[in-house]
């Protein structure tokens, strides 16, 4: 029986009837497990499109992540892949049976026990009774629910239902596994267990589609990903890039909604005319590498003589994390009377910042550091690039070593 492959009108196979399909060898193995072209979904009675013009392919054996805010269309996409609903526009092709964990408790009858529900799931997937019982045994072992496995599901907590659901879905050994945001319900131990099982499923050649707010899980488990925003694909590509782009936007939005807003402030005794970034050779740039020298030049003018103003240049990450903020008062430098136009240079040698987007603040305060003559808060953006994968905010010089210790 072929996978679902139709332009609209869409006619997937009846849910619940077994459609287990073995992946073909040879050139057919290169066929995408999931192919989506111009996919769109609009629910009846709604003007808005839940998904619009979505196009991507997931080769067999690949893991594909789906990230985005609530309401971005992640669940709708997984519903379409599972066959729970039909596209309104575009094409969708899913080659093979799917095992899905889309909603906590979906498909479970609370009057039945965990065992009975597992057998039922196997029967629905097209297994014979012996196969369904074998599935139930595997699920029982994985779920680690103890005696509860033989009690009605209505006695389960949400975490236990998730254990049962994941155990059943993982035990079905379907060629395509769909998981939608339910892993977070489980405890840390079982979440880890689920991730390990998903890695195993992936290593066995199954195709995995994971929609999750756990961006670390998406980066760890997925080869590629799509970032959905208001139903459209904002970015499709390698999972680390897609997640990185999404994280950056989240950070910017968080920063914009909390804390001090970027902008110009001050009493006006100092006027900041210009701010530029230069490298060690004096070249003006907007992007620097980790470890390079960064020189911030500030052209400023006083409107009256000022006695030892405190001058400072601070660096923030674009989500508002305060990285570092030196000033002349702390350094006990640049004291004197200032009356006229000047160029302040703050040089950061061997820049330890890791790759990302940053913003510089420039401020001039009175001698006692009480009120600001001029303060341009996070108004000067620049970028840092790193030459290798590193995690965190700054590069700290470090060294690993192991020595044997006698017990």
């Amino acid at each position, binding site marked *: 029986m072929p996978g679902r492959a139709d332009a609209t009108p869409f006619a997937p196979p009846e849910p619940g009837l077994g459609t287990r399909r073995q992946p073909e060898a040879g050139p057919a193995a290169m066929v995408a497990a999931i192919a989506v072209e111009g996919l769109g979904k609009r629910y009846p009675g709604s003007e808005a499109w839940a998904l619009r013009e979505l196009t991507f392919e997931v080769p067999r054996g690949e893991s594909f992540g789906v990230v985005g805010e609530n309401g971005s269309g992640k669940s709708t996409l997984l519903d379409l892949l599972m066959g729970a609903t039909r596209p309104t526009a575009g094409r969708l092709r899913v080659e093979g049976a799917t095992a899905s964990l889309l909603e906590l408790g979906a498909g479970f009858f609370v009057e039945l026990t965990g065992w009975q529900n597992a057998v039922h799931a196997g029967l629905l*997937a097209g297994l014979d009774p012996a196969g369904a019982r074998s599935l139930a045994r595997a699920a029982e072992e994985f779920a680690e629910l103890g005696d509860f496995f033989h009690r009605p599901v209505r006695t389960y907590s949400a975490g236990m239902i998730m254990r049962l659901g994941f155990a059943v879905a993982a035990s079905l050994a379907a060629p395509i596994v769909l998981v939608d945001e339910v892993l977070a319900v489980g405890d840390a131990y079982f979440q880890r267990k689920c991730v390990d099982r998903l890695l195993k499923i992936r290593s066995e050649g199954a195709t995995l589609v994971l929609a999750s707010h756990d961006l670390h899980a998406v980066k760890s488990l997925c080869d590629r990903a799509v970032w959905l925003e208001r139903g459209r694909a904002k970015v499709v590509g390698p999972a680390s890039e897609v997640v990185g782009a999404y994280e950056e936007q989240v950070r910017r939005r968080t920063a914009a909604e909390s804390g001090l807003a970027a902008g110009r402030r001050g009493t006006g005794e100092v006027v900041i005319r210009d701010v530029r970034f230069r490298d060690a050779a004096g070249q003006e740039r907007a992007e620097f590498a980790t470890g390079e020298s960064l020189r911030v030049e500030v052209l400023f003018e006083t409107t009256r003589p000022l006695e030892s103003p405190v001058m400072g240049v601070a660096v923030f990450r674009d989500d508002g994390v305060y990285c570092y903020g030196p000033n002349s008062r702390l350094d006990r430098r640049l004291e004197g009377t200032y009356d006229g136009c000047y160029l302040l240079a703050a040089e950061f040698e061997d820049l330890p910042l890791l790759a990302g987007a940053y913003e510089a603040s420039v401020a001039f305060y009175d001698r006692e550091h009480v009120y600001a003559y001029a303060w341009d808060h996070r108004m000067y953006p620049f970028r840092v690039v790193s030459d290798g994968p590193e995690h965190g905010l700054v590069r700290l010089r470090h060294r690993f070593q192991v020595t044997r210790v006698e017990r």
Partner: protein
Amino acid sequence: MSRAPGWTRSLGPLVLADLRQRYAGSALGGAWAFLGPLVEVAAYAVVFGFLVRPHTDHDGFGYALFVASGILPWAALREAVEGSASLLPAHRWIRRSPVPVDLLVARHCLVASSRAAIGLLVVLLAAFLSGRGRTGAGLVLAAAALVLQAVAVFGVGLAAAPLGTLYPDLRPALTSALTVLVFASPILYPENMLSPSIQAALEWNPFTHLLRLYRAPLAVSGAAATGLDVAVAAAAAAAAVAAGHALKARLRWTARDRL
């Protein structure tokens, strides 16, 4: 002949679990499945035996049996059809699961039919104890009626499930329609009390034929059950299933999206 769908194997445990769940926690438990119809038959016997004497061929108790043998299957039909119309909104999780609507409808209808079967068993018991029971073909016909009604309401339920989701007005409309059915079927009155033209009109009501089958093992007045009644009931059941499947196929995606 194609293999039965996998979901049919789950029906038995689901129906049993549902029946257990209905009486879970009560002291008498499953005995209520028998006590309920027993009390109903007793109530009819008291009302029609002592309080209201209907002008029929029956004595009071006979009339009680006559009414009970019609009202209990009708109640099961109402429970199955009305419940099916509310099934999908009550089980929204189905939208994101591989469980087919057919399973939910079949379970619901079978549970209703099981209760009808138990109720009829009580009526038969009362009939035999009072010397108004008939053995033989009558029992087979009554059993056939139970099966045919279960099949028919399954078909109606398949259509009612998506329709009730898309058109919520259907649910109260069904209640009214099924109430009308009580009077448009020979449940409360024997057919021989009606004019020939109305008797002829009743022939178009499939439930009339089912009622004759249900009353076949009872020594109560009314039109005798014939092979034609079986044929009409079977045809109606088959038509209901075919129409139900067709409507379900046509409406299920829209109904799922509406959930």
